[in-house]
């Protein structure tokens, strides 16, 4: 049989996360290419079917239905927001299709949404925000103010940061929730200034982060407090510019600069550079690579494309594709991996890609994750 192995890839090619999404596609194509160049599986090549979910959960569900019903894809990898990944997950779960999610969310690990077909290659807020808390609280102080995008993902970041902070005796002065997608944050800033915290945690993402960071800078907040953010995106930093992000630190799943320390990162970056004339992959882009690559590797390991067999193969997979060793935790299929803490540079940049300084890498450990029991899983 020489039928291709089809991987459906719904992701928001347009809309506010389009930069990240298009990078995801590029990296995923790289994974496909590597698989095919290596001869595929029993001569069967892999194919990526990219669909624009427009960052809209309804559209994402429809597109996933299309991929499953019309295109008859074998697996689904993708998504770039909590809401769309949960909707894709819901559809896949109902149709018993394997889904490897590459966007952050805590909910997807919980038993309510989870199914045996659900894998989560991305970090989740508990891991990222926790790591940032563990890094910054001892260094900058215990009085914390949160500026939070008012949606599930924002709340999850706060919860994780507080949870890690509690062990270190941190106190929350205020959790200020701003509307998702607000373009002006100035109205929240005088109060934050008046509260005078040690650390201001920006629990938002993408353009919200760019705008809030920028305005914090304008209002001179940086002189009296440290600004940190659980998810500091490479692409957001590029779009926001060095001035706005100066001195802000945060967590990320990947930064190309890891190549100095981790050999697989170097291999991955070089392959990416070669395929896309000199560009480097972004953090979320890299997840596209990993998400597809793990699934295809599992197919090979399972020696079958049968979904349940691939699930088992994934559960048993130990891999190091680009950022050091990883594996999927058995109970919730969460990828156990490192969190990289970076700080935005504003000077001494070698080229336009050189935007972060790696402060530390928090090692892989299940201790920092919510336990299986906590999530409602049996084992």
């Amino acid at each position, binding site marked *: 049989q020489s039928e291709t192995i089809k991987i459906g890839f719904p992701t928001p090619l347009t809309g506010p996360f389009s930069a990240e999404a298009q990078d995801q596609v590029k990296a995923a194509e790289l994974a496909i290419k590597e698989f095919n160049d290596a001869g595929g599986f029993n001569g069967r090549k892999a194919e990526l079917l990219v669909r624009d979910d427009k960052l809209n*959960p309804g559209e994402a569900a429809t597109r996933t239905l299309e991929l499953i019903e019309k295109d008859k894809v074998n697996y689904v990898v993708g998504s770039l927001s*909590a809401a769309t990944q949960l*909707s894709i997950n819901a*559809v896949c779960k*109902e149709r018993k299709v394997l889904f490897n999610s590459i966007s952050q969310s805590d909910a997807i690990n919980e038993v309510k949404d989870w199914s045996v077909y659900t894998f989560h290659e991305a970090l989740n807020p508990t891991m990222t925000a926790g790591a940032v808390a563990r890094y910054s609280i001892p260094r900058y102080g215990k009085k914390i103010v949160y500026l939070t995008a008012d949606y599930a993902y924002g709340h999850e970041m706060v919860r994780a940061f507080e949870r890690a902070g509690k062990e270190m005796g941190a106190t929350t002065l205020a959790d200020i929730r701003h509307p998702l997608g607000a373009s002006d944050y100035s109205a929240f800033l005088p109060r934050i200034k008046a509260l005078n915290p040690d650390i201001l945690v920006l629990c938002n993402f993408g353009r919200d982060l760019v705008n809030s960071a920028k305005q914090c800078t304008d209002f001179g907040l940086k002189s009296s407090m440290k600004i940190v953010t659980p998810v500091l995106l490479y692409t957001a930093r590029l779009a926001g510019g060095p001035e706005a992000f100066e001195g802000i630190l945060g967590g990320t799943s990947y930064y190309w600069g890891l190549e100095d320390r981790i050999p697989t990162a170097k291999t991955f970056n070089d392959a990416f550079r070669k395929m896309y004339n000199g560009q480097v992959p972004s953090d979320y882009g890299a997840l596209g690579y990993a998400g597809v690559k793990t699934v295809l590797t599992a197919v090979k390991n399972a020696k079958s494309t049968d979904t349940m067999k691939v699930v088992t193969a994934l559960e048993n997979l130990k891999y190091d594709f680009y950022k050091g060793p990883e594996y999927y935790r058995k109970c919730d299929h969460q990828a156990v991996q490192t969190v990289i803490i970076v700080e935005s540079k504003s000077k001494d940049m070698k080229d336009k890609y050189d935007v972060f300084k790696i402060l530390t890498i928090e090692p892989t450990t299940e201790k920092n994750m919510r336990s299986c029991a906590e999530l409602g899983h049996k084992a």
Partner: protein
Amino acid sequence: MKSFFQLIARHRVLASTLFLMIFPFIMPYEALAINILIFGLFAMGFNLLFGYMGLLSFGHAAFLGIGSYLTGIGIVHYAMPWGAAILVGVIGAAIGGLLMGFLAIRTRGIYFSMVTLALGQIVFYGFYKAESLTGGENGLRGVRVDTFNILGMPVDFLNPMIKYYIILFFVVIAMWLISRILNSPLGAVMEAIRENEKRAAACGFDVTRTKLLVFVLSAAICGLAGSLRALHLSIVPIDSLHYLQSGQAVMMSILGGMGTFFGPFVGAAVMLYLEDVVTTFTKHWMAVIGLVFMFFVLFFPQGIWGTILSKLNLNQGSKS
């Protein structure tokens, strides 16, 4: 030829039904066809108010959303049977329409649009904040109906074709209702009010009551569309309530031909189909859609369906 079309116009519900029976076979995949059914219904419900009463609401997403959420919540949290869940959705939307309409019809013109927009956003935030029931930004997941029991006969609702025809059944009922309304004396009053409120009142028609009545009917139909959508997607995204969704109904109606019976449906079909196809081969779909819109506005001012009707000289009294 012409008499053929007149025949169709006379039996418009029957004709539409026959057409929709074969529709899934000309669409690339069933989920899209079902989406078109649902949004076609949504746009038709909206058009009842917009095209026939001249009230441009920017808050109709509220009814789509209320329908979806109530049906979804009924199934997810209260394990209701699907029939009851749909009923709850439709009634909920009608009640929502009554409240919103009651407040909004005191204003006119663009102000009416804006009040409905604002009230719609308030509904949005209400559902957004009721996270424990609605799932907030993440949406309501798990609206699962695997099998439909029709007169004791279980059918597989996961089968896309079966799902299509089940949903079509409801859509046809709603279309029949809309068609009846338009042909009825109330339909005539609606148009009269659209043309000239002052005169309509002087003729003895209670303008406020009529507007409210139509608002509620329109909301209920949009609510039904919402309920069906929850069953179709098995999730309820919060975007269902967003004003951009209301905007879609406006666009669909105008694109297809406002104030025509089938126009909004055509608008929905063209728009969704185009978006689907264009998105698949270019990421610059927005430019393509934008240009197509501009093209139609400039060269087909009566909308696609409206233009077809007037080319065939069938739109006397704009009743098709």
